């Protein structure tokens, strides 16, 4: 059985068997990704039934710890846990002791006292999932840490591409926009490399980090060669006033915004959300039939079910295993 090599040595509890976490795509192998996508497909077929709930994680506790606002990610993790019959508890920094200045370490210790099986964490700083993994005995799933990683987003994007285009190997995806502030882009670049998707980063020079292992260009015309345009959110809230990454949003939109005119017939468009319609993506593009944005959201549910299942059980979920779980 292949295991996810997420557990760095310092995270291993002394003497115990390694706990599995999902913190960065960099910790995964191609086999891990294929297993996770396979598990997601199995769960997808179960969701087609009339009764959508599976007893797989009955009696398990999944805590969602969110230090940043989120609609898609937090709702899909919560629903994923519920579909698998786990107990769920959602803690948001607003209205919790975090408001009173409690450190992440103390919040982790507090929640750890409930013996959760999984802690799903979103936090504005890199390294927060590792800190929670060190301070608790839970399996940790990273739902976004700073500008570092958002591994379940990358997995759900791979899942969407595979479902909609029928393959991954050999596809060409252009990632367009604010790459430097994007944890989604960092996870995607690594995930694409693992599964053989060609990836080109496109955007204004100051928004392209030097040193990422992918082709980079500021010329928007190269997107015509791509099979898929992956449009990133223009993260204006991360831009300090006067930072001058771009002169203005208006100028950005004119030069890098994705409009119908910049699309070739048949090109697919993806976006991790939330969208700034009229900034990085034209409303006509977002609502067109070639946009896979709703499919991405739907994939999020089954992929997060797979992620929760995978860290807890550490094995492939075949039809037989699933059937056995249902009987149990």
């Amino acid at each position, binding site marked *: 059985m292949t295991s996810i090599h997420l557990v760095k040595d310092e995270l291993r509890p002394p003497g115990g068997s390694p706990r599995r976490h999902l913190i960065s795509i960099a910790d995964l192998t191609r086999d891990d990704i294929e297993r996770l996508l396979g598990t997601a497909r199995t769960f997808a077929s179960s969701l087609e039934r009339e009764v959508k709930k599976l007893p797989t994680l009955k009696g398990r506790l999944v805590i969602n710890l969110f230090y940043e606002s989120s609609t898609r990610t937090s709702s899909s993790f919560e629903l994923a846990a519920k579909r698998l019959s786990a107990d769920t508890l959602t803690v948001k920094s607003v209205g919790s002791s975090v408001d009173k200045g409690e*450190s*992440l370490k103390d919040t982790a210790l507090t929640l750890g006292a409930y013996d959760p099986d999984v802690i799903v964490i979103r936090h504005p*700083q*890199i390294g927060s999932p590792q800190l929670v993994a060190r301070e608790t005995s839970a399996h940790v799933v990273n739902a976004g840490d700073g500008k570092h990683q958002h591994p379940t987003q990358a997995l759900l994007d791979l899942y969407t591409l595979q479902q909609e285009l029928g393959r991954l190997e050999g596809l060409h995806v252009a990632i367009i926009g604010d790459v430097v502030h994007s944890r989604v882009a960092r996870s995607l670049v690594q995930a694409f490399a693992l599964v053989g998707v060609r990836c080109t980063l496109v955007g204004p020079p100051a928004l392209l980090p030097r040193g990422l292992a992918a082709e980079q260009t500021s010329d928007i015309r190269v997107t015509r060669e791509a099979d898929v345009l992956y449009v990133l959110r223009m993260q204006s809230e991360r831009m300090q006033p006067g930072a001058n990454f771009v002169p203005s949003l208006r100028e950005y939109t004119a030069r890098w915004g994705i409009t119908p005119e910049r699309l070739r017939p048949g090109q697919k468009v993806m976006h991790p959300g939330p969208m700034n319609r009229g900034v990085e993506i034209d409303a006509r593009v977002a609502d067109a039939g070639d946009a896979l944005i709703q499919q991405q959201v739907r994939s999020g549910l089954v992929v997060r079910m797979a992620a929760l299942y995978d860290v807890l059980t550490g094995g492939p979920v075949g039809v037989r295993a699933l059937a056995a779980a249902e009987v149990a």
Partner: protein
Amino acid sequence: MLWAREEPGANLVFKGARVIDPVEAIDARLDVRIDDGVIAALGDDVETNEHRVVDAAGLVLAPAFVDPHVHLRTPGREDEETIASGTAAAAAGGYCAILAMPNTEPVVDTAATLGSLAESAKRDAAVSVGFLAAITRGQRGEELTDMGELAELGAVAFSDDGVPVSSAGLMRRALQYASTTGRPLALHCEEPSLSRGGHVHDGVVAAELGIGGYPSIGESVMVERDLALAAHEEQALHLLHLSAAESVAALRRAREHGVRASGEVTPHHLVLTDEAVRSLDPNVKMNPPLRAESDRAALIDALRDGTIEAIATDHAPHARHEKDVPFEAAPFGVTGLETAFAVLYTELVEPAVLTLPTVLERMSAGPARIFGLRRPRIAAGERANLVLIDLEGTTRVTENGFKSRSVNSWLLGRALKSRIAMTLAGGAVVFE
């Protein structure tokens, strides 16, 4: 001026030590006798005069170290370090003298603050301590401190370490005025508009991890500016904690053109690169940040050829709870006094990257020369400022093993080659 607690001078004899004093060109197996804290005899089979005899066979006896860059956190953050704990840590690391930076709470920018530190040092310091005073009041970069009065009271040099002097015009005035005091300026070179938001070197690792980058040019453009000002004013300056190859090249060029400029480098910049940041250990977060392998190589070359004359720890203690947070939330700085020699020996001397005499010189005579301090030397008639080193020993770095009040060492858990066996400072045994 340096201050320390009065201690009775030692009476002892080192038997058969490998005595190394790079400046005196000594590397020989000798006995050394110390009478009342003064080196009295040096040679084969010296009389022991009924002194305590230390069997130093197989051990190295060298001039004790001088650290030009220490944060003693006093006044204001005595929970992190005190004069007593910081100098005890220095003694354990083989140092006989350290210089403390003025970025405390309050900043050392008045005669009153400096005077009270001197009084504390006379009471508490295990090894000699000198204090730098700020260049600008409150280190705000607006008005010069009363440098003349501060120098008279014993300020060793002036520095706004921790923050740069942003205004070129004010820096020029500082160079002009400091020349009347005979004390050097020690400069933290950082261009804030390039370093803002940076937690690590702006390289591949920052790009992959998505951590804000502080590029090499954020340091080197300020180094170039200050060297140009020093050349124009024909004044001396010292560059603190250099990290980038571009800065080293600028320093080398300026020195070739006759600018009286010196530089220092830390053990962590000599040993680590930004690859270490992948661990997300808050104890590899420092300012300036760890840079690329090419930067590290340039720093080592500059240390070897003397462009960089001093090794400085930039010992920066931080409270445990302040470092026990995610990487980006952690403050900059690591401790280093107690591990400096051992890590340099393990990572650079033993693998034959640098010679032992070079490291010993850059840790002692080099920094003393820059700051106009009396150089620790091994010669008859000199007060004993000596370090006895067991190169075959082991330094285990553990949380419980520090004399420092803080444990934010990047070497926690490591077993380093070599061990400081004994330190004499000002004629007294301060560590063994």
